[in-house]
């Protein structure tokens, strides 16, 4: 008896079984989506906001005792979290919009205002305060069509433990406690200027490149950030066991929690000029409610900056080449 004989009993799974199992896994996600709130458009706006709250709730830090703050949240990594849209619906039904998840008193110290159009990357750099990078590679027929700069935002929210408890009760999260030290503390959020560069093809938008310094969030000192992160993950809809394990495993000092869109068809990690990033492909909803055009998005960070490239109708290779050609 040799290795050939020992290997001889291997068989490929039957195509019918492989297809059946694959369909079953897809159905698992489809069931999650069918339970979602039907108002997807409104929910989408909330997802963005909840992502922000997830950031608020889940950022850790280094002690900065002089300000009794934990300075935190510089984006290095991104981690996907499947969003339970029904949770978002419950929040909206209770009129618990995201800033008020953790406190009613919010103060906008610096209002970014509407985006301002500029005429050149140099002008954008001057307005944003950092060296703006532009892609050297442009897919066939694609051309730059506009640049906007959004100003810095700075806001503070006074945390309210009772409010967060109310949110948790609304969502049926009864097994977790609001961390001590949160109540009355100031959550400080700074979002540096954002440069948004639009690229068209044939008169329609083909891609948008977004770049900004990493946002920074500070929480009051002494808070159990892992516990707070776990609450944030539960608010996003993760099951208890997953939320606990995930909260324990994640590096909260450098990881941005972002929601996984229900229409994500594929995503994977990529390397963009030596920096880890992610690529996601998703179908945009069509006007008739069906499956619309495929959109690609790349998200990566490098040297304290966060970059995003969203493209419609560009191939993965073209998107990647554009991203890698930034200079």
């Amino acid at each position, binding site marked *: 008896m040799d290795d050939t004989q020992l290997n001889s*009993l291997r068989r490929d799974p039957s195509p019918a*079984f492989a297809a059946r199992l694959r369909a079953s896994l897809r159905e698992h996600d489809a069931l999650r989506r069918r339970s979602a709130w039907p108002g997807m458009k409104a929910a989408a706006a909330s997802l963005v906001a909840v992502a922000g709250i997830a950031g608020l709730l889940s950022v850790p830090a280094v002690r900065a005792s002089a300000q009794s703050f934990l300075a935190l949240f510089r984006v290095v990594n991104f981690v996907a979290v499947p969003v339970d849209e029904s949770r978002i619906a419950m929040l909206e039904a209770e009129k618990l*919009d995201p800033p008020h998840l953790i406190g009613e008193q919010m103060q906008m110290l610096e209002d970014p205002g509407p985006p301002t159009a500029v005429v050149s990357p140099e002008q954008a750099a001057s307005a944003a305060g950092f060296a703006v990078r532009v892609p050297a590679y442009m897919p066939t027929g694609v051309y730059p069509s506009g640049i906007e700069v959004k100003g810095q935002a700075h806001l503070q929210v006074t945390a309210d433990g009772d409010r967060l408890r109310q949110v948790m009760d609304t969502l049926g999260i009864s097994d977790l406690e609001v961390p001590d030290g949160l109540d009355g503390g100031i959550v400080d959020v700074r979002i540096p200027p954002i440069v948004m560069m639009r690229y068209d093809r044939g008169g329609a938008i083909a891609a948008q490149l977004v770049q900004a310094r990493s946002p920074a969030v500070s929480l009051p000192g002494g808070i159990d950030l892992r516990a707070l992160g776990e609450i944030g993950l539960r608010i996003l809809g993760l099951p208890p066991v997953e939320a606990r394990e995930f909260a324990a495993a994640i590096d909260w000092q450098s990881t941005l929690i972002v929601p996984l869109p229900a229409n994500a068809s594929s995503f994977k*990690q990529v390397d963009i000029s030596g920096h880890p990033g992610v690529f996601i492909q998703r179908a945009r909803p069509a006007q008739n409610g069906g499956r619309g055009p495929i959109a690609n998005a790349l998200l990566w960070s490098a040297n304290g900056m966060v970059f995003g490239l969203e493209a419609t109708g560009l191939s993965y290779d073209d998107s990647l080449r554009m991203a890698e050609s930034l200079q």
Partner: protein
Amino acid sequence: MPLEHAMPGRLARWVSAAEPDWDAVYADELPRIYNFFRYRFGVTADAEDLTARTFEKAWRGRFRYRRDLAAFSTWLFSIARNVAADHLRARRPFVTLDEAAAVTAAGTPEEQAIRNSDGERLAALLQQLPDRERELLAMKYGAGQTNRAIATATGLSESNVGTIVHRAVQTLRERW
């Protein structure tokens, strides 16, 4: 002002993932997991059922996978081994591997007959091995894992894995 107006909304909507490319994972790992169960338990129906259970558990728990701790195949195999252990505890009756071979073997009737004949003998011999040896042979020959990967998955030393596999193969040869 709502936060969604202050946060870089497009960035927030984009996703990341410390997650594998599931299409590629499925294509690569399905045959390995399936054959691990075939060698381990020998029943096509069970192998499919156990493979499905493994992938469903992995899919539900994919957010627990940490790329920095283990290769994805290692993580998936740890789930498969747990599924196998649960299956053993359930003490379900086994059917021998030759039945599986008979169901799925391809080729001419003559080729199939020869293959089934060897399959019957090998299946019978596998069933006689101690459980630990059968598991390691399933990992090595069913799933095509290296001794190092088996050592990582089982907690045994690589040399120990080699010794056990060698001993098991020797036993099979002697009884062949």
